[in-house]
Each structure stands twice: as C-alpha cells, then as structure tokens.
C-alpha cells in the first residue's frame, strides 16, 4: 500500500539522519555562508536547501536538533524592507555605557550567542544585531531604554524567542534586550492563587512551581519549555486551555512595563477588581513589545483540580467534529478544558516525523479530536466523559476512540497534538497560518487550499476547534515563491471575506504587519498608529513590526 511505502522510506531517512555519517553533511562553516546574502536589505531570498526529499545535498547541522533544517532569509511579500535611516548605528561608546549599567558579563557581543538570538525558532527570519543585553532589574531596563531613546537606537525585546511571526528577532541591527535574566518568582498568594513574577520566567518553570502549590497556569502551549511569561503576555498567547480559562486579557491582573523613554509604568496590581480610570495594562497585552517592555506580571492562577481525563477520538467528517464540539459543550459543560482537532494529514505527518509518536487507534482516520476534562471528582468526571463518549459513538458522531487510563497515556495523546509543529519543521519548509474562522467554514479553507496547490505541497489543518482557531500549515520540500504566490494573498482574502482574523493568537510581528488591514479597519489602525506615536515617539521599540510600515516610519 502506498501509505506504508512512503512511511518506510521516510523512516529510513529519519534513521539515516540520526546517524549523520550515512549522509554527506556540511562543515560548520557553511552554516554561516548560507546567510551571507542577508545583510542590510531583507529580500525574499531563499536557498535550495535539501531536506528529506533530497538527502544527497549539503545541509547545515544545527545544534538544536541535529537534523537538517531549512535555512532561509525571508522578507515580506510586499517587497523589500529597508533599514530606517532615522536609527543610529551602534558605536563603542554605547557598548561602554551599557557595560557601565549592566556589568560586562551582561553585555554580549559574542558571535555564537548572537547567532542564536538573531534567528527565530522557525529559522525563517534572521537579523544582524551586534549586541545582546541581559538586564537583571526593571531599573536597568529603564536605563537601557532611556539611553536608546536619546540615541535613537532601535531595540528588540526578546523573551524565549519562540514566536512564529518574526516578532522576537531583529530585522537589521537593533539592540536585543533579553529578559531571560529576570526570572524570579516574586510572590504567590496561596489563598487567591495570584502569582507575581518577572517577565523572564519560563512558562514550564512557573507551571512546576505552581504544581507544588496546588495550582496551574491558565495558559498552556507546546512551546512551554522555552517561552517566557513576558512574551506570552506581550503576544496575548492563546494556547490549549483558552476554551476553559479564557484569554490573558482576563487572567492578567497587573503588568509592570517600561516605556520607550525609560518611564516605569507600575500597574502591577494583585486585585481581582479595580475600576479606577482607564485600564492601560491591556495596551501591553498583545502589542508585541511595540508600546513598552513588560518586566513584571501578576496573574490569576486557577487551582489544580485532581481529575484530568483525556480522550482521543476519530470522526469520519468535519461536520461530525463540529457537532461533537456542540455536544461536548453541552454534555461535559463545566469540566471541558480542551477541545482540539487535527486532520488525517496532520496525524500522518506526526507519525512519520515525530519521535515516539504512536497512533492510539488501530486504524487511520480522516479527522481526530482530542478532548480533555478537568474536574474535582475522578469517578463522576470519568462517568460523565464515558457516558458522553459512548453516547456520541452510538449517534455515529465518533467512529472510534480511546480513553487514557493513566497520566502517561494522556501525555502521549497530547504529544501527538503538541508535536505537530515540530514534525512540520522536520518535514522540510513550512508556510504557517493562524486564523480565526467561523467553525462551520473552517475546514473549507483547508480543502480549497489543497485543491489550489495540488500535489506541490502537503496542506494540513489542525487547531483549537473549541476557539474557532485554525492552524493552516503548508508543508513543502523547500521554500518556493511560486507556491507562496498561490497561498498569499488568497488565504488572507478568504479569511477577510468570511470575517475572520488573519492572526488568531500568533500575533502580527514582521510577517503580517502589512496585512493587518485584512482584519482591522483603516480608522482602527490609524488610532493604533497614534497610540504608538504617543508612547514611542522615536519608534525605537520593535520597529518594522505590528503596524503597517507605511504608517510608521
């Protein structure tokens, strides 16, 4: 059967890559020569870097995964992005000044460390910053920004660098201000569950800390091992639990941010209710570092409930997935904590490329749904879930399904869903889109894109069905502008026509800054520009991103 042959071939290639001696590989120096073309002008430049489909070429090894990764420099479809001449260039006096504030150890000019900070997680965007700063206190961040503002030095705030729209890395030579050293948990109130911590705390570390106290974070995402809470707040990250706990706009109680001119805005309250004046913290939640650098966060954490159940289900068509969602919201009600879906192509990708992935079901299906319930009573929750699942099976909403019997099995189901991004990276080049579309029409986009691209690309769809959020990913052997022209602007126009959002949770960053009009009106964007001019008159914070470049120059 053709499916098995492809899988066997890919499995062989996967094994070969884990033993690099079987394939000729590039020497470390070629990793740098691939990027020579990317300097001051970011062009839609790309390299024919082979992947699984062309193993006998030269490819660079990265230390992160030890497998060949697509190296690419990618610019906006709209054309060239030019370095704004209003920004000064870094000089030795600047470096000395920063060393004076932070100490030489926290002023990084080391080539290797800079390379990592200059490239985003997807290896799609690469900057050429020569300076990485690691402040340890809010006061230091304030001094850095005050100086940069006076010198017109552009700045990129950076957390875990796991963003998917090029918002966390420099476009040119912006100074990188990394929040990683500000990783202390400041306080935790066991009665209210209110946590106050610095912006550089890694999400997974916060989750472990809270676990000890009997609480959980209201957000959870695949990148939790690297992403930092400051970045999560600045991008208004969504994640897997939004359907139950809502967005960060609801859970963040307070923010401490530093404005472009060094002013420290202390809005770090730990109050559930505070209606005194305009609630400005919301400006910093989701503005992707363009209005200020978030340095501290206070967040309301839900108590950890003892009974978590996960089911992995198969549906025969997309409308069954939808009906299942409606039924789940009704029958499982208050215990539903996650509702994710993935299509058959996503499952195949994960089974072929992700280590340790195992299909929980005996056969392959066209659509899969992952349901998680969280409640306080193990036996009643399990009964409720079992009754719902067996009922759905009788009504033919589900064609097959598995219920996790212990935490390990539950983790392995989540591994399948959370590992799709990683599997995509290993499969070659990926064009990633994160869209909010009304549930009924969501999968139509996937099918239309599939017929548009034919067999030039593998189109997969998965996402937070519970939030009407589709992650549309197009996997190709290598980046190809012909394929890109078939995707954009079609995908944005389609989304706009159906009154959706071109960025449900990933944010706008560099990738979609010029496309913001597909989802926001001209007047709205104009007001955003006014606010930007008010808070950052010299435009030093995260330039070229978030708002259309024609408005902010």
């Amino acid at each position, binding site marked *: 059967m053709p499916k098995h042959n492809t899988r066997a071939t890919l499995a062989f290639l996967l094994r070969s890559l884990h033993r690099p001696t079987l394939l000729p590989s590039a020497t470390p120096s070629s990793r740098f020569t691939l990027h020579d073309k990317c300097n001051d002008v970011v062009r839609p430049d790309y390299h024919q870097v082979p992947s699984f489909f062309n193993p006998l070429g030269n490819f660079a090894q990265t230390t992160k995964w030890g497998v060949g990764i697509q190296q690419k420099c990618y610019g906006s479809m709209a054309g060239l992005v030019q370095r704004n001449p209003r920004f000064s260039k870094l000089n030795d006096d600047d470096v000395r000044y920063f060393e004076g504030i932070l100490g030489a150890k926290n002023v990084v000019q080391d080539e290797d460390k800079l390379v990592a900070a200059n490239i985003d997680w997807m290896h799609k965007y690469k900057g050429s910053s020569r300076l990485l700063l690691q402040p340890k206190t809010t006061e230091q961040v304030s001094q850095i920004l005050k100086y940069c503002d006076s010198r017109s030095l552009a700045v990129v705030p950076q957390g875990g660098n796991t963003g998917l729209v090029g918002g966390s890395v420099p476009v040119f030579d912006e100074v990188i201000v990394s929040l990683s050293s500000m990783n202390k948990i400041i306080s935790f109130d066991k009665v209210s569950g209110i946590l106050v911590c610095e912006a550089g705390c890694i999400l997974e570390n916060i989750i472990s800390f809270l676990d000890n106290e009997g609480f959980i974070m209201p957000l959870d995402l695949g990148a939790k091992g690297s992403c930092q809470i400051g970045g999560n707040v600045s991008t208004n990250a969504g994640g897997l639990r939004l359907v139950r706990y809502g967005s960060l706009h609801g859970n963040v109680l307070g923010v401490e941010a530093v404005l472009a001119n060094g002013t420290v805005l202390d809005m770090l309250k730990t109050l559930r209710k505070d209606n005194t004046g305009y609630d400005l913290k919301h400006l910093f939640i989701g503005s992707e570092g363009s209005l200020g650098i978030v340095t501290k966060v206070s967040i309301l954490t839900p108590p950890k409930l003892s009974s978590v159940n996960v089911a992995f*289900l198969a549906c025969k068509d997309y409308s069954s997935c939808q009906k299942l969602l409606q039924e789940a919201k009704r029958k499982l009600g208050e215990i539903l904590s996650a509702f994710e879906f993935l299509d058959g192509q996503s499952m195949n990708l994960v089974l072929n490329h992700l280590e340790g992935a195992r299909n929980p079901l005996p056969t392959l299906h066209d659509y899969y749904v992952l349901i998680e319930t969280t409640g306080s009573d193990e036996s009643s929750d399990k009964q409720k879930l079992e009754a719902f699942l067996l009922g759905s099976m009788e009504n033919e909403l589900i064609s097959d399904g598995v219920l996790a*019997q212990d*935490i390990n099995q539950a983790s392995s189901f989540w591994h399948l869903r959370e590992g799709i991004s990683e599997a995509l990276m290993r499969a070659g080049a990926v064009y990633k889109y994160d869209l909010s579309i009304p549930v009924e029409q969501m999968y139509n986009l996937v099918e239309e894109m599939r017929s548009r691209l034919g067999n030039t690309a593998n189109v997969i769809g998965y996402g937070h069905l519970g939030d009407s959020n589709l992650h549309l990913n197009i996997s190709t052997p290598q980046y190809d502008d012909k394929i890109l022209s078939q995707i954009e602007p079609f995908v944005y126009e389609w989304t706009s026509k159906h009154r959706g959002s071109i960025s449900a949770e990933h944010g706008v960053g560099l990738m979609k800054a010029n496309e913001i009009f597909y989802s926001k009106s001209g007047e709205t964007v104009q007001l955003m520009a006014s606010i930007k001019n008010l808070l950052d008159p010299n435009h030093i914070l995260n330039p070229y991103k978030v708002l259309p470049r024609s408005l902010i120059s």
Partner: protein
Amino acid sequence: MTMKIMVAIKRVVDYAVKIRVNPDKTGVVTQNVKMSMNPFCEIALEEALRIRESGSASEVVAVTIGPSHSVDTLRTGLAMGADRGIHVDYSASLYPLSVAKILTKLVQIENPGLLILGKQAIDDDCNQTGQMIAGLLNWPQGTFASKVVLDKEKQVATVDREVADGIETVCLNLPAVITTDLRLNQPRYATLPNIMKAKSKPIKKFTPEELNVEIKSDLEIVQVTEPPKRKAGVVVSSVDELIDKLKHEANVI
C-alpha cells in the same frame, strides 16, 4: 487445549504523579492523588491478551486485591480485553506474602495454566509476590521476563529474563508463574468499543476470610522520609582545590 491465564493487577499511585510523604511520616499521600494500574501489571495483562489472541489460551482472568476503588482498575483491565475479573475486597495495608497466599487460593479455585504478574509494584517496589506464589504453589517461575514464547503442544514456556549480566533464557513446564519486565511489550490503549463491552463483563467478589487467608505482616514500617535534597554542584578553579575538597569536604581520599 483450553488454557486459562490469570493476571494479577494492582491499583497504585499513578507513575507520573510527584510523590509526597505524609505529615506523620508513616507513608505517602494517597488522598486526591491520581491512581492507575501499575505499569508492570499493564504489561502483564498485555502479554496475557497477546497469548490468548495467538490461540494458545482461551480466557484471561484479571484479579485485584484492594478497596472498592480497585474495581475501577479491574474495569480498565476488562476494557483492555480481559474476559472476566475477580475482586478480593480488603481496605487495609497489604503485604507480599499475604497477597501471595490469596492468589494461591484463587489459583486453586480457577486452575489457570499460567499466572502472569508485574515484576514489582511501583508503590512498594517489593518484587516478592511472584516468587512467593511460585514457592507456595511449587510452580516453576520466569521472572523479569523480556520475552515469552509459549509452546502449546509441549506445554512449555520459554522465557528470556533480564538479569544483571544480560539475558538468561529459561524453559518452564506449565503451569508456571511469569513476572514481567518493562521491555516485554507495549500495552494497548482502552478503546471505546472495548470500554463499552467491559461494562457487561462479570466481576466476582471475594473476601480474604472466605479464602481462609489472614493478612498480617512480620514487618512494621517505622518511618518514611524523603531522600535528602541534592545540593547544587560547585565549580572549582584548579586541580589543587579539587583535591583539597575531595580530602577535607567529601572525605573520599
């Protein structure tokens, strides 16, 4: 040949849960903590099911000893594919020798050709029950099994055992006791159709008194404490400093 396989399963604190010692240091906290089937017991049950599916056995009986909640674990076993279950109701602490005696009595009632258990339970890590039953029944035993091959005609089980030096192969005449190790197989998931079927599978109840077994132990747990927290490492600046620390701080040279 209609051979029956009996599998003993235990309900324990879930493997992935972070264990905490209770305040009076007599044991670990089990209140409000996720409980599941012991992973080695899952492997034992999976092996029994595979033997039945290959045609060498006709029935798989899952047995558990514990409080009423243990029936949930038994239902999981039935959902994986066991044909029927036996629950010996007992709510207080259990000890390997007492468990072995109870299982011996059940073996005498059920007459299985093969008794499969996990090599140890992850809550007490005793690794004693299987061996004790084999002694009480005077049956051959293949413990730490990483491979089991059954010969139905000759009524012999060939078991590869994981021992310290490598793999040891033993041949056991049936009936025999096998305890399973991690690499034997990968247990199946409980699918919804099987969960549905499991609801109607019979579970027979017993009590230790009915089986004439007295549950007692000659051991008394005096105290349970957590291991000392691991201290952070120290970077030394020279070999001399290392030698000094090894001599005077670690006292190893």
